[in-house]
């Protein structure tokens, strides 16, 4: 009993520490790549070519003063960043890094993932309401409305994958793609899913909650020091996990292209996540921001009908040709 507990705990620590380091270097990669696109140098002072910059940033945030505003609701105000951070960590529990290399190999992995990412709205809403600041409040409302709008089309896209593989276990979803990655038969769905990921994680071109010109920084405007850092870590870990889920569902997870092998499975999975990370960053550098009414229009009037239509097509083809799995 204790041995199982200890093994699982060590597994979890083995996942969380590299994850936090990955998040730290995600921010450095973002600054470096964006600097490259805009013909600047980016951080290059601390460490060799700025490689220690994320650690310095972390240390700086750690020693800063935690400001708890007087008219804020203190309990909820403290709870919100913790909530965001915890939810972004526990969604990694079902992600398989290679065959059998997963913390909780549940049959309902996909559903668990969707459930946890839906709960992410709570962190945003609680922080916006408890801050008792107009910017935070408006930012939280916008952010929540945006996240729930795109979640539906993401869910329906995931159902397309479910139909094709006949399971919700993420390991089995990857194994079902041994012959062909699902990005090929489900190309429109996978593009829609990725755009949904961008909207769900409040990234460009959907970063309206943080529209700094009008809302300063959105729902986390009142946060300082570690409260802010937890939001920041949570958001970037969310982006990584969204990239991981997209790779698992559409790019064959840890499978190497054409079965070439060469590198270990986990490395292929890491490369695929890195691909999405770089895509996230490049999107931020090259795309302008949507207007809010355009964003909602895109979510409800384009993505939702399109997702439903693609679902009808997929199930029609699978039923008509009797290609259903199992």
């Amino acid at each position: 009993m204790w041995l199982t507990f200890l093994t699982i705990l060590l597994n979890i620590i083995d996942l969380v520490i590299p994850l936090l380091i990955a998040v730290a270097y995600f921010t450095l990669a973002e600054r470096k790549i964006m600097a490259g696109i805009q013909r600047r140098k980016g951080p290059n002072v601390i460490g060799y070519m700025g490689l220690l910059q994320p650690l310095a940033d972390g240390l700086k945030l750690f020693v800063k003063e935690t400001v708890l505003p007087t008219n804020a609701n203190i309990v909820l105000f403290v709870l919100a960043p913790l909530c965001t951070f915890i939810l972004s960590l526990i969604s990694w529990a079902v992600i398989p890094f290679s065959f059998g290399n997963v913390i909780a190999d549940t049959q309902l992995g996909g559903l668990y993932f969707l459930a946890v990412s839906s709960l992410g709205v709570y962190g945003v809403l609680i922080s916006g309401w408890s801050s008792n600041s107009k910017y935070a409040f408006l930012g939280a409302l916008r952010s929540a409305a945006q996240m729930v709008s795109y979640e539906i089309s993401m869910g329906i896209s995931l159902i397309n994958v479910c139909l094709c593989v006949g399971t919700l276990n993420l390991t089995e979803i990857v194994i079902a793609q041994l012959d062909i990655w699902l990005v090929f038969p489900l190309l429109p769905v996978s593009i829609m899913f990725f755009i949904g990921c961008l909207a769900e994680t409040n990234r460009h071109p959907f970063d309206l909650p943080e529209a700094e010109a009008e809302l300063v920084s959105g729902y986390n405007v009142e946060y300082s020091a570690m409260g802010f850092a937890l939001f920041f870590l949570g958001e970037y870990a969310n982006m990584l996990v969204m990239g991981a889920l997209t790779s698992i569902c559409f790019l064959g997870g840890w499978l190497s292209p054409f079965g070439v092998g060469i590198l270990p499975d986990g490395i292929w999975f890491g490369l695929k996540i890195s691909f999405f990370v770089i895509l996230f960053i490049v999107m931020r550098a090259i795309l302008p921001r949507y207007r809010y009414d355009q964003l909602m229009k895109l979510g409800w009037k384009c993505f939702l009908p399109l997702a439903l239509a693609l679902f009808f097509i997929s199930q029609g083809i699978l039923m008509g040709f009797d290609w259903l799995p199992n």
Partner: protein
Amino acid sequence: MFFLKEYYPVLIFLGFSLALAGVIFGASFILAVSDADTEKLSSYECGFDPYEDARNAFDVRFYLVAILFLLFDIETIFLFPWSVSLSQLPSIGYWSMLDFLFELVVGFIYAWQIGSLDWE
């Protein structure tokens, strides 16, 4: 027991991340030098003093979006078990879900027509 076996690691993960978040936040709160004054602790409003509570009326359309989300998300949750077990379903199971979706689409078109999806 089956349930316990599958979700036991998730429970431990939840406890671990709760502890980690608490330690990070708590350690910074205790260790960092805190020097608070009234101006610093007032909520941020572009330089001037906040003159009213931030929790006042907001646009009802946010509420509408939340309700629409509930409807469609429940539909998505219905579709998950259906899509996983589709090959084992008799034709009545298949057609009743299609009927449900058809009615949902009719409702969606209605919501579109009365303009509840518009943001002007």
